[in-house]
């Protein structure tokens, strides 16, 4: 898998799926339309500033709340190449893998990354490099089973390949 590299948007604990994509927009399931409202209830600047490849970094329990797959879909469609968090809520974790949004858990990296830093992630090794600060961290690599789903770019392709 190719490395992710981009500028960091930094958020705190318990970023829930209602702020990632508010339910008032769930009458659509179009990724591009969902992306235009991504994060707007906690960060109105996000959709104006986000560029292809950018990275979201958050503290614990990212993606808690609703099971809406629209949340990782909106983040991916907004151009985000990776989400790094101390921990992810479990449904969000599954959904991200299933739709092919790269995510990685690493409490150490999260503590030392600030908004605006340039960060690079190597998914094969789980290494996270803060190019702004010149530091590096070892993230939690996926178990082999999940790597297969990610390598197939999601659960649908994985099942088709079986």
């Amino acid at each position, binding site marked *: 898998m190719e490395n992710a590299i981009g500028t960091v948007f930094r958020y705190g604990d318990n970023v829930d799926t209602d702020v990632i994509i508010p339910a008032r927009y769930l009458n659509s399931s179009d990724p591009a339309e969902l992306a235009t409202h991504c994060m707007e209830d906690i960060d109105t600047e996000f959709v104006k500033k986000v560029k292809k490849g950018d990275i979201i970094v958050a503290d614990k*329990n990212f993606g808690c709340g609703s099971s809406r797959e629209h949340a990782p879909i909106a983040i991916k469609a907004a151009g985000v190449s990776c989400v790094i968090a101390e921990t992810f809520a479990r449904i969000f974790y599954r959904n991200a893998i299933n739709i092919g949004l790269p995510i990685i858990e690493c409490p150490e990296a999260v503590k030392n990354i600030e908004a605006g830093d340039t960060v690079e992630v190597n998914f094969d090794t789980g290494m996270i490099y803060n190019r702004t600060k010149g530091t590096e961290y070892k993230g939690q690599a996926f178990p082999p089973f999940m790597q297969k789903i990610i390598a197939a770019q999601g659960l649908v392709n994985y099942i088709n390949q079986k």
Partner: protein
Amino acid sequence: MGMTMTQKILAAHAGLDKVEAGQLIEANLDLVLGNDITSPVAIKEMSKMKVDGVFDKDKIALVPDHFVPNKDIKSAEHCKCVREFAYRNQITNYFEVGQMGIEHALLPEKGLTVAGDVIIGADSHTCTYGALGAFSTGVGSTDMAAGMATGKAWFKVPGAIKFNLVGKPNKYISGKDVILHIIGMIGVDGALYKSMEFVGEGIKNLSMDDRFTIANMAIEAGGKNGIFPVDEKAIAYMEEHSTKKYTVYEADEDAVYDEEYTIDLSTLKSTVAFPHLPENTHTIDEIDPELKIDQVVIGSCTNGRIDDLRCAAEILKGRKVAKGMRLIVIPATQAIYLQAMEEGLLKIFIEAGGVVSTPTCGPCLGGYMGILAENERCVSTTNRNFVGRMGHVTSEIYLASPAVAAASAITGHISDPAKL
């Protein structure tokens, strides 16, 4: 090393004698659920799979409930997509307006969820069926698609937290107070990736509706599932509602738990979760009595069942809501609605100055039927009080029991039902 109740159910459905926490397994599914928001995405994903159709037309439940009756044209298109898929695949358990209800109240009532089942649903509150001794958990649309196509899902076997419930709750203390107390204690990620296993002699003092409420909000503590042992009350409920065969699993005596808590139900007070997280709990005696409330919602998959409506009606009977208060009551299913009508509960709500809605998730997720304006406050029996959940980003949601909600509708402030 023994297995927890959840681990035993998962092992049996994976064809294994034994599983342990952290193990990745593939389990056979007894039921796959979706609603009008998550199913259209699942249907689209399933169309990309090389399969002829669904794995079993009797083991899929499609319940349009979030924006139903259709709130706008886009919602109507989503519902149409679900309806056409259901007809095309001859889905037995598709519930149209008129038969539908809020999915997690509806499925147990229709007898589709029983002890020992493994159930996935593309809705986070799918964990509700743990009240009957099933393993049930929320997933996303792609998992739902794979489940509909193959009848299987992958799981990481969860570790567990044991909650030993003892004693008898006082009047007006319900399942909602129990689960809010627990979430306040362990936090919104306190049970992350784990099962919450409820045990203890105190369970006999909790009605099935109390247990549904408790299992329903396991997700608000980050839990993978919440689960109760199968006792006489659970068996009586299943025998009344279902013809499906159920299987009773019990945790091994030497099952391993990551943490254990004992909760004396007799000491619990009415508990309210303040904005903007379910863990921000306060007991009723420590709440500012002057906090003005604009709206009260009594309903949802958490608290829209008949016990909840009876409790609210008992408090509202012969009283009026406060001036300027909007009270919205939403029976969770058609059967509950009818029961409430026959018992005279709807008359009580309407005479008190409230409105009664057809079953819908509606305001709980800020869909419609009770959206909040800037800076407005709502006491709600729903399950989440995140920023913007019920409307404007500056609006506030206070999660509470039906008893506290009804009392607050009368006074216009967050109030103790025991002190009216």
